[in-house]
C-alpha cells in the first residue's frame, strides 16, 4: 500500500528558493534603489554639508550627501546578500528562511528609512545646523520596519510535508507503553537568564528615557525587546500523538514536528555559545540544524526527514526522546 519513498536527495534540497530570493534580495534591492533615487532627486534642495548625526540638541555630525547615500546602500546590500545566502543555501527549515528574509527587509528599511528621513527634514534648509529633530523619523521607521518584517514572515511558506515510512532507528531509546495506553510528556523550560534579561530591558528603557528624555521611543523599544525576550526565553515542550511541539509561552512562535517526519530522537549536550553562538531560536550555518536554546546542558534532539535536525534544551529530555521514538514507531506499519 505504501509507495516507495522518493529519493532522499530530492528532499535534501532547500525549498522555496524563489520566495527567499524575492523577499530577502528583491525587496531590499527595491527599497535601496527607491531611497537612493529619492535622495538623488533631492540633491538641489539640500544644504552642503548635510547633517548626518543628531545629538540631544539637534544635528552634531555633518558630512557629504554622497557618503550618506552610498553607505546605507552598501551596508544594506551586503547584509541583505548575506541573509539571502543563509536562506537560499541553508534554509531547509522554514524558520531559517523566514528569519533571514524578515531580518533582511527589517534591516534595509531601518537603514534606508532613517537615512532618507534624515534628509527629508533638511530639504529647503540652508544650513544643516538648523535641521529639525529626527525622533519621529526613527520611531516611524522602526515601526514600519517591524511591521514589514512581520508580513515577510507570513509570506514565506512553511516546510512542505515530508513523511517517511522508514522505521525509527532500532537502537534509539524507547519508552514502554501498553497496547491501549496513550502517553504525553509536557515540560516547561525557562532560561536561567530570564529575569536578568527582563531587568536589563527595564534598566535600558529607564536610561534611554531619563538621559534622552525620549520616553515614547524608550517605551516602544522596551515593549518590543521585552516581548521578544518573553517569547524567546520561556517555552513549553510537548511530546504526544501530534509529535513534538515547542511553543513559546506567548503561543508564538511555535514549532511542530509531526510523528511521521521523526527519523530518530535522542539526548545531546548543548553548549549554546560554541554551537549556536548564543541563546534563543538559533539556526546553524552548516544547514539543517536549528534549535530553541535557552540554556546550556541536555537537549532533546530530533533527526527529521529532509536532513533536518531540530533541538530544544529541556530537562528530563531522555523521557521526551524515548516517548517520541515510541510514538513515531507506532505510526510506521
Amino acid at each position: 500500500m505504501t509507495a516507495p519513498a522518493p529519493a532522499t536527495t530530492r528532499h535534501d534540497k532547500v525549498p522555496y528558493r524563489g520566495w527567499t530570493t524575492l523577499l530577502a534580495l528583491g525587496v531590499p534591492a527595491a527599497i535601496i534603489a527607491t531611497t537612493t533615487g529619492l535622495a538623488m532627486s533631492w540633491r538641489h534642495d539640500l544644504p552642503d554639508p548635510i547633517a548626518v548625526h543628531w545629538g540631544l540638541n539637534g544635528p552634531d555630525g555633518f558630512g557629504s550627501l554622497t557618503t550618506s547615500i552610498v553607505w546605507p546602500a552598501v551596508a544594506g546590500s551586503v547584509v541583505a546578500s548575506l541573509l539571502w545566502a543563509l536562506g537560499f543555501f541553508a534554509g531547509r527549515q522554514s524558520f531559517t528562511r523566514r528569519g533571514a528574509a524578515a531580518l533582511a527587509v527589517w534591516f534595509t528599511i531601518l537603514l534606508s528609512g532613517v537615512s532618507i528621513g534624515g534628509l527629508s527634514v533638511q530639504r529647503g534648509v540652508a544650513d544643516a545646523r538648523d535641521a529639525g529633530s529626527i525622533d519621529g523619523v526613527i520611531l516611524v521607521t522602526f515601526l514600519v520596519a517591524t511591521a514589514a518584517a512581520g508580513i515577510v514572515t507570513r509570506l514565506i511558506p512553511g516546510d512542505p510535508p515530508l513523511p517517511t515510512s522508514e522505521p525509527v532507528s532500532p537502537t534509539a531509546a524507547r519508552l514502554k507503553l501498553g497496547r491501549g495506553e496513550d502517553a504525553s510528556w509536557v515540560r516547561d523550560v525557562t532560561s536561567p537568564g530570564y529575569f536578568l534579561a527582563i531587568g536589563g530591558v527595564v534598566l535600558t528603557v529607564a536610561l534611554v528615557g531619563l538621559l534622552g528624555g525620549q520616553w515614547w521611543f524608550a517605551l516602544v523599544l522596551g515593549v518590543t525587546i521585552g516581548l521578544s525576550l518573553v517569547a524567546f526565553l520561556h517555552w513549553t515542550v510537548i511530546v504526544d500523538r501530534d509529535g513534538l511541539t515547542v511553543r513559546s509561552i506567548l503561543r508564538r512562535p511555535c514549532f511542530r514536528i509531526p510523528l511521521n517526519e521523526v527519523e530518530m530522537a535522542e539526548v545531546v549536550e548543548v553548549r549554546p555559545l560554541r554551537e549556536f553562538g548564543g541563546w534563543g531560536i538559533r539556526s546553524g550555518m552548516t544547514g539543517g540544524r536549528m534549535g530553541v536554546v535557552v540554556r546550556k546542558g541536555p537537549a532533546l534532539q530530533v533527526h527529521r526527514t529532509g536532513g533536518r535536525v531540530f533541538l530544544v534544551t529541556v530537562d528530563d529530555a531522555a523521557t521526551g526522546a524515548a516517548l517520541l521514538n515510541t510514538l513515531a514507531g507506532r505510526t510506521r506499519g
Partner: protein
Amino acid sequence: MLFRIDPSGTEPLAAQLARQIRSAAARGELTPGMRLPSARDVADSLGVNLHTVLRAYQDVRDEGLIDLRRGRGAVMTSAARDVRRLREAVDHVVAVAHDLGVSPTTTLSLMKEALQ
C-alpha cells in the same frame, strides 16, 4: 512530566493521572517548588476533557501535594518531599522483607497492623 492513560482500563482517567503525580513525587521526579504543566496543555495533549485533568489536580491538592493558584498554576508543596521520604522508608521495608524471605502477604498484614 510524563502522563500515561489507558482509556480501556477500569480505573477512572482522573484517578490514573492523580496516581502518576503521586508516584512521580514518590520517585523524586517532582520536587517541592516544581510546577506541573498547565491542565489545558495536558488535556489537549492527551485528548481528554479539561475537567478530567482539573479533577486529578484537585485530588492531589486535597491531599496537600500541590498548591493550585490562579495565574501560577499547580506548584508542588513540601509534601512532595514527605512522600519521597515515606517511599524510601517503604523501599527499605520491602528490601528487608525480601532479604528475610518474608512473603508480601505477611509484610502487608504487618504494615496494616502497624498503621492501625
